[in-house]
């Protein structure tokens, strides 16, 4: 990868993106709103129907935050990173870098050095966040790398569900996305983090597309804490991400549900790490990979049971679906068990869409593309079930769109 060829910073004010930080969407650049609508993610609709508070992020600078007042009543902080640094420096200082230190990996270091903004969430003790929190990302200017940083802290007994939906317009040059997401759950707290990612995947010949190198990690710090990652990755030319959980607190639970799709010349190397440290910890991994065209799809997962992790349990299921005969699916599970009381379950399957399945659906009136879409959605159902409703609908549509032309 040519790092020299990429400019590291997309500063607000360059390009056409809006830079106003207003309290309502009316103050937003109408061009931005129009882009959202074209991509089928109307913020207005979200705002009025789903009651989702939205923090729109463009080119690493947060644009607007809605529903601040409602959340403020409950003491929930949901704002841009820059604002958090100003208004809640102690919280930020306490937790920033505690899950992903700047020494963690090359791209985390890069992010630590140049990140300009992102989102910050803090949910106070005993508070259940009443709405799903969401942030939309969009890489706008050409040759820009996106380095946002998200930090979510769920204090004792709290609950928050966070949606991350990524979009990008079509560009010729590759763009880098090296974000860092840190989640911290204290005693009896729960964080649910859902992502639907459809960054520009490159063209049919594999030219262009986003490089998505993200470091996402959650620490179940407290007793009985729980962190769930759900992701649907359909975009990006190259995806490298392993949303992980450090299961430190006793009885803590980590979950990872993933659908990764590669078509044309996309490559995805994704999975998770579940590190069991405390006693009686549990982790669940369900990874579905779909390869089409010349796509290469890899599941890479690590389940590590440390010496002190008595009574640990893991269930892993990784399934691959191959469409056509030019794609690839690979699985690299790493299982390290250092405590003999651990219970590990691992299942894997590889399948293709059979001509007989396709014919069966077509004989009932469905055209070839709808038939493939139906089979693929059935394949992904276990993961889609974990997504918040709005995202599940978008995810299904996204799969259909991403598989266009893969039927042959």
């Amino acid at each position: 990868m040519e790092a020299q060829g990429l400019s590291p910073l997309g500063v607000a004010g360059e390009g056409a993106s809006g830079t106003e930080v207003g309290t309502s969407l009316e103050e937003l650049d109408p061009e931005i709103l129009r882009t959202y609508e074209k991509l089928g993610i109307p913020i207005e609709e979200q705002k009025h129907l789903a009651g989702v508070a939205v923090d729109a992020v463009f080119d690493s600078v947060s644009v607007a935050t809605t529903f601040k007042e409602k959340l403020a009543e409950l003491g929930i902080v949901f704002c841009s990173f820059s604002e958090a640094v100003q208004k809640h420096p102690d919280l930020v200082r306490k937790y920033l870098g505690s899950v992903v230190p700047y020494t963690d990996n090359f791209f985390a270091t890069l992010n630590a050095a140049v990140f300009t903004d992102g989102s910050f969430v803090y949910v106070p003790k005993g508070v259940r966040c009443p709405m799903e929190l969401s942030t939309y990302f969009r890489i706008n200017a050409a040759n820009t790398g996106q380095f946002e940083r998200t930090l979510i802290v769920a204090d004792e007994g709290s609950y928050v569900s966070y949606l991350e939906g990524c979009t990008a317009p079509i560009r010729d040059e590759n763009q880098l996305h090296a974000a860092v997401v840190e989640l911290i759950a204290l005693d009896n707290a729960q964080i649910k983090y859902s992502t639907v990612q459809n960054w520009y995947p490159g063209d049919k010949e594999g030219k262009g597309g986003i490089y998505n190198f993200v470091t996402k990690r959650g620490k179940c710090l407290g007793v009985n804490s729980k962190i769930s990652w759900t992701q649907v990755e359909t975009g990006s030319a190259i995806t490298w991400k392993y949303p992980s959980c450090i299961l430190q607190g006793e009885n803590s639970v980590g979950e990872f549900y993933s659908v990764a799709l590669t078509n044309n010349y996309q490559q995805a190397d994704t999975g998770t790490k579940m590190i069991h440290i405390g006693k009686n910890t549990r982790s669940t991994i369900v990874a579905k990979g779909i390869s089409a065209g010349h796509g290469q799809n890899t599941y890479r997962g690590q389940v590590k049971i440390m010496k002190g992790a008595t009574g640990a349990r893991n269930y892993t299921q990784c399934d691959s679906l191959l469409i056509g005969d030019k794609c690839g699916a690979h699985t690299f599970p790493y299982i390290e068990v250092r405590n003999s009381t651990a219970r590990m379950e691992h299942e894997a399957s590889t399948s293709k869409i059979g001509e007989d399945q396709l014919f069966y659906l077509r004989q009932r009136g469905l055209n070839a593309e709808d038939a493939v879409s139906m089979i693929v959605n059935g394949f992904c159902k276990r993961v889609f079930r974990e997504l918040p409703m709005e995202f599940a609908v978008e995810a299904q549509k996204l799969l259909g769109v991403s598989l266009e032309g893969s039927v042959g």
Partner: protein
Amino acid sequence: MSLLEIKNLHVKVDNHEILKGINLRVNAGEVHSIMGPNGSGKSTLAQALARRETYAVTTGEVSYNGKDLLAMKPEEAACEGIFMAFQYPVEIPGISNAYFLRSAFNAIHKYRGLDEIDAIDFLPLFREKLKLLDMDEKLMNRSVNEGFSGGEKKRNEILQMAVLEPKLAILDETDSGLDIDALRIVAQGVDAMRNPERAIVVVTHYQRLLNYIVPDFVHVLVDGRIVRSGGPELALELEEKGYGAMETEARHATPA
């Protein structure tokens, strides 16, 4: 005008010619039975009519409802009212039977310019047909055919047929793998669908299904050709004498 008219149909599978000149005419309101020994081409005929692409038509014409059937893709033929009950129905993990059936129903309705139906409105129609086939509603929330016994799969095929109401129904060895009770229920379900606008083609080895669904015409297929046609009594004759005599006859009739 016949509903289905097949003229000199030759079909190849994996470079082997299986059907060697089929001629058949089926009118609306009729029930035809295609019988024959293993390998005679019965299933091939069914799949070719359902427009499966791996069954290559090398020569011949098939007109269905006044249209050229051989020019249609499988989904077009389906939307034009052709339904095939599969001999080996497949499973579709993650998609419930109810959702699948409703999607098929809507695809066909959309093709015909009719209104689509939502899950709630679909329920009464669905339940009525479930009862007809003595099927448990709980099965319908399971994935398509997943974990179904052989008999349940076949009943599911007829359930789908009952909901989709085709013009031409082709039953490909629906009776294979069915026990006595399942056979009766399935057969009664099919028989209940006889009406003057609909034609049913029953492909089978055995006579027993035809006790319930008494055909108007019976055709014997041997080595890719129809060697005899007759009324329902022909099926009884086959039951008594077997296919042997007809196979020998066919072999002698085949040009060298």
